[in-house]
């Protein structure tokens, strides 16, 4: 199994996909689970589909994600679904999302 995991990690590294590899603990799992609430539209771990109408979030600067989420939440930034969804997240959750996504590495090429 460890070998399989290494192969997967290596394959992912080659394709430029961040793997969230490395030591995992309960906090990291929770952070990644929070990011997963964005994934249906923005892609698994924030890697959007190449043809997606929405941006990939992985590797975006944390400050930018926080700013945009708060702008959606306040109504300063217009949109269709995002202003409605952003209102469901607290400041702390937005910050955790942003930190986790920023650390997740570069977006898919």
């Amino acid at each position, binding site marked *: *199994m*460890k*070998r*399989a*995991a290494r192969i*997967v990690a290596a394959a992912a590294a080659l394709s430029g996909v961040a793997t*969230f*590899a490395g030591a*995992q*603990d*309960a906090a990291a*799992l*929770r952070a*990644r*689970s*929070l990011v*997963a*609430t*964005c*994934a*249906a*539209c*923005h*892609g*698994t*771990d924030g890697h*959007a*589909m190449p*043809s*997606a*109408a*929405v941006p990939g979030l992985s590797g975006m600067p944390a400050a930018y994600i926080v700013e945009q989420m708060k702008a959606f939440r306040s109504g300063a930034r217009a949109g*269709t*679904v995002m202003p*409605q*969804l*952003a*209102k*469901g*997240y607290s400041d702390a*959750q937005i910050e955790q999302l942003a930190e986790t996504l920023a650390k997740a590495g570069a977006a898919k090429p």
Partner: protein
Amino acid sequence: MMTTSMKRRDVLLKALGAGAGLAGLSGCVARVDRDSGAVSVVGAMNAIGKPDVARVLVVGGGYGGATAAKYVRLLSQYKIEVVLVEPDAAFVSCPMSNLVLGGGRTIADVTRPYATLEKQHGVRVVRDMISSVDATQRIAVLASGGEIRYDKLILSPGVEMMWTEITNLRAASQQGRVLQAWKAGPETTALRRQIETMPDGGVFAIAIPEAPYRCPPGPYERACIVANYFKAAKPRSKVLILDANEDVTSKGPLFKKVWSESYKGILEYRPQHKATGVDAATGTIKFEIQEDVRAAVLNVLPPMRAGAIAVQTGLANSNARWCNVNWLNFESTAARHIHVIGDSIQIAALMPKSGHMANSHAKVTAAAIVAELSGWDPDPAPMLTNTCYSFVDDKRTVHIASVHAYSEDEKTFKPVPGAGGLSPAPNEQEASYAWSWARSIWADALA
């Protein structure tokens, strides 16, 4: 290096009839001899704190099950072994499948392979069904006769039609005379054929059961798509919606506006019409109160309940229809180590039975299982999101969105106040977003 889990994997692979490797099990007949001890190298009770020797069995490869299978692998950093049992050869999406009925899309447009789950994520996909579950021994029996032992079981079996609620419906459905097409696939194509070959001047009648049922806005979207097709191709034809509910159950004002503006004289909506029987020979629907209705194409949806395997396993402990779960990990309140997700569960307040919601259930469940098998507490504050697009014709959509947070006080999910909402009006911009959503969520579940 031969670890215990690798040994067990090899033994199991042999038992499953496969030579080696993670992929290629699809279509194999799984035969695990209970008496040979082949799968008992690791006891099911030993897995806590040792995720790399644990096995999660996922039953059902729809929006819930496919997502759960992928995310258990992903979130466990590929430590936990995952077996997915699914009878169909490919994933066919119910969302977007109404467009096939209008003729603008084919079933291939809403179909994706399971192969990526195997190749990219090492999920073993076994093409079969589960015929029974021994919740005490943690063994699931395959329809083909084999057995699969699990540490955690995730059931995502969708809905089962309650045929006996509508007289003659089961026979009419089996004969292909009165279709449901409420699970996308060959029936969707067959219903399209009925609509396409119906002579102009005919009526397409869709009967909607009392809520809760799978996909609340789905029947109204379907009515719009068929009406839009009639408008272009069969202008003397009509769409008749016969709804057991008191009013439109989802996106009501938006649908009604479209009906009056775009489908006046083509589409008629009749609330409080509870279907009780059909007569396929005469094309008749019978109702609890009102006069019979005759139509050229009948699309009668009976009341629904949790998928058969969930009911049969004794998990449908809410009104004998739906499965109550603990919301922190979606574990059944009726059986330990069995988690139920997707349309089969007894929903929390304002939680739709939708594909996106099943995807959300799957992720919370996967994370909770990974946490438990790692020896950690589950996330005390999980979140669920839902976005659902409905097409009102071939170019415009409307959406509904919501965010649900776990309430520690009430031990359930509640919509976050102030969050969520609807489109202000049907629009073309969101039609492209709807396809973007579909392709993204299919990839999130499968790729």
